């Protein structure tokens, strides 16, 4: 008999997949966006099922917010009439299919070649005990060990911020000191990149004024 987790996974996966198909099939741009919302919410559901609450909530807050903007743009662009329904040409179908099949192939190959064992199979976890965002931050800083190991040094256990304050002065935290590797630097680089992209987008989208015209 199928257990609860398998059943829930199948239900959510079917829901996500069907919504993804509906994104492609529907002609109305706003409806497409709505189906996209359901697809991404379904993905968040899978994350919740695996006990990755932080990732799931991030998925919701980012994509629902993102789709919100998409819908608003959809409404603004389609309000004129000719764009209410989208016509897709044959060439676009071909290009999109090729790209889609290539991406699917890449994902399937990666998934098949991964070092999966039976105990690495995802389990429905107790959200109370699942890895929290605090642990995420700790492993970014290099306080707790991460797998796969990073190539860069983290702050480690001997950093002054982690020292416990006692009456005799400071003493190192009780755990043994070891060389900690962390992903903090790559993470920060990605964050700064993202910030630059955001500022660039805001710059491009600003209200343009022609030189010499006083408005």
């Amino acid at each position, binding site marked *: *008999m199928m*257990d*609860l*987790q398998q*059943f829930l996974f199948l239900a959510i996966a079917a829901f996500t997949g069907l919504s993804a198909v509906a994104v492609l099939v529907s002609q*109305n741009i*706003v*409806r497409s966006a*709505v189906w996209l*919302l359901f697809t991404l*919410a379904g993905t968040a559901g899978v994350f919740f099922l695996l006990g990755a*609450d*932080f990732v*799931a*909530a*991030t998925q*919701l*807050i980012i994509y*629902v*917010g993102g*789709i*919100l*903007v998409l*819908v*608003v743009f959809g*409404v603004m662009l389609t309000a004129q009439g000719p764009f209410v329904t989208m016509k897709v040409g044959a060439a676009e179908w071909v290009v999109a299919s090729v790209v889609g099949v290539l991406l699917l192939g890449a994902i399937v190959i990666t998934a098949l070649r991964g070092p999966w064992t039976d105990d690495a199979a995802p389990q429905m976890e107790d*959200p*109370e005990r*699942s*890895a*929290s*965002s*605090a642990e995420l931050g700790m492993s970014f800083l290099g306080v707790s060990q991460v797998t796969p190991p990073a190539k860069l040094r983290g702050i480690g256990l001997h950093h002054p911020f982690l020292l416990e*304050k006692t009456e005799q002065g400071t003493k190192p935290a009780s755990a043994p000191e070891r060389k900690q590797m962390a992903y903090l630097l790559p993470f920060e680089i990605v964050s700064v990149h993202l910030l630059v992209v955001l500022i660039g987008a805001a710059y491009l989208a600003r209200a343009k004024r022609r030189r010499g015209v006083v408005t």
Partner: protein
Amino acid sequence: VFFLAVRDQKTVTDFLSSRLGLAHSLAVLIVALIAAVVLITFMLLSAIFFVWLERKVSARIQDRLGPTRVGGKFGWLQTLADGLKLLVKEDIIPTNADHMLFRLGPYIALAGSFLAFLALPFGNNVVAQNMNVAVFYMLAVMSSEVFGVILGGYGSGSKWALFGGMREAAQVVSYEVPRALSVLVPVIVAGTMNLNTVGVMQTGAMWHWLVFHDPFTFGAFWTFFTCGTASCKRAPFDLAEAESELVAGFHTEYSGFRWLIFFMAEYGSMFAISGIAVLLFLGGWHPGFLPHDLTEYLGPVAGNVLNVLIFIVKGWILVFVMMWVRWTLPRLRIDQVMMTCLRYLLPISCVLLLGVSLWQLVAWEYPVLAYCNYLLFGLSAAFVLYTLWRLLTTSSKETPTQLMPGAWGALQSKVP
């Protein structure tokens, strides 16, 4: 039994699966269903109560009586009468409407509001799902509630509804930022996003509540509450339904049951926002004058029931404040709403976030700063007492002649 099912899910699940011989997954499902039913019942019952309260509060603020007949002296059953009227009302879908989106809108709004309740602890461990990132999760699902409003607004095929939906989108996308930033302030102090842990941390007297922890959490409470009011689209931020400009905004074309669902979602999210505020700032389920949790005095059952009651009453008080604000302040213009957010609330919340980070570092060096909470609590208590004293000692008998006593009762007037 319901209460136990919510509080000790493990125990009940084990009981069902071992004693009664049910499959484990079935037991999990049953417990989850019970928790969901309890929560949605609470949400709908409190919506019924809030509708009545809103009528009464608005009436008293406008110097009227409000409902007085249905169900006895105070019109207790007015909401039921309203509900019956809405249920028998004709359900209209405009010809121009996008039928799928029009039908979908209210349900998405209600789902967003209800999902937030799953992670809201009503007492110590009285929570449907004790999540590690409960605050974050609640903010995430509550931001999807707005999606229903926008879909409803777009799907109605009416320009008023469309304007309402667009305004709502602009407003919510903007207000989400300061709301999240001001939630981070108490989260930094508590060091966790688990609402249950944050609640347990505030055990004890009122000055242990996080709102009094330092000047920055004190400020964050006000910015959070303001942004929360705006994200529940309550006046003075109810631009999405501005009657004087947009007929009824996003719900212009809705009638009957679908309209009712929109409003249940709104009242539900008002309580959810108030619940977050109570847990993060106002001591959660603690009464504020006892040194320990109530369960230590009264035992697990009575103590937990009282905890839940205290939490609910605190949430209701904050909802009452939202109503008070709604019927006191005039509605802002849309550009004023955006300016309030982007030019004031956003910088303020950024400063609060930086400030509290610095405070945590400095307080580590100078333990004397840990006494700041007594100062803040003293000042707030003094302010509240002074206001009460002013209210009670100002005579209401100096009514200007030829005017009815009432709203003018407490004010001196130069009108002869």
